[in-house]
């Protein structure tokens, strides 16, 4: 399935890109993280417990099932305000 992945702030700098479109197998956000880490060691930061996931503009847990066309964003801990 086709998924758009976005990286923000420190994770954007670490991944060296703000956005990519990938074709992972079906699964949850956790499955996607494992797939991304297997693809590229640099992606281990995505697996850090402090990383927040936003799918289609909503914060989700790692158990969230992804579907084709989803936009998932990997976010370091928020520090606004």
């Amino acid at each position, binding site marked *: 399935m086709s998924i758009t992945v976005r990286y923000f702030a420190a994770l954007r700098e670490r991944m060296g890109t703000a956005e990519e479109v990938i074709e992972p197998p079906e699964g949850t956000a956790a499955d996607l993280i494992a797939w991304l880490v297997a693809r590229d060691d640099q992606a281990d930061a995505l697996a850090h417990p402090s990383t*927040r996931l936003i799918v289609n503009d909503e914060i989700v847990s790692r158990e969230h099932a992804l579907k084709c066309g989803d936009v998932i*964003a990997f*976010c370091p801990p928020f520090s*606004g305000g």
Partner: protein
Amino acid sequence: MLIRVQTERFDAGSLLNMLSGADSDCGAVASFSGQVRGGNNLVALELEHYPGATEKALTRIAAHARTRWDLRQAMIIHRVGRMEIGEEIVFIGATAPHRRAALEAVSFMIDVLKTQAPFWKKEFDDQGARWVDARPEDDRAAARWLDDKEDASA
């Protein structure tokens, strides 16, 4: 309800006066302004955010405050981009018939914003730049509101 994410500077006093004049049945107006704090050789901040998701998160936070307290107005204005020391970052305001609702809603909105809205601060000092870490006390401050579902406006 007014939610805005903008690069432009804003005038906190004007925003407060917008709230104050809005409703004749409001006895109470509370506000919080966050601004860039100098010190530790800080030169400037840069605020990154997730366009779209940010506005949705702020709207949800203000709507949540309105279900929890008897408010008339709720306002969240947050800047993004580069900001110098002393510049305003965020303005939170609420009006209500009674003071406890306005005061608690403002505390709630800023506490929850810190942990639930996708903003990231980068600090620039004379050594370079670094991303600001999340602070455990911010998590605790937000958890205080989100774990405790009872209406605290009594």
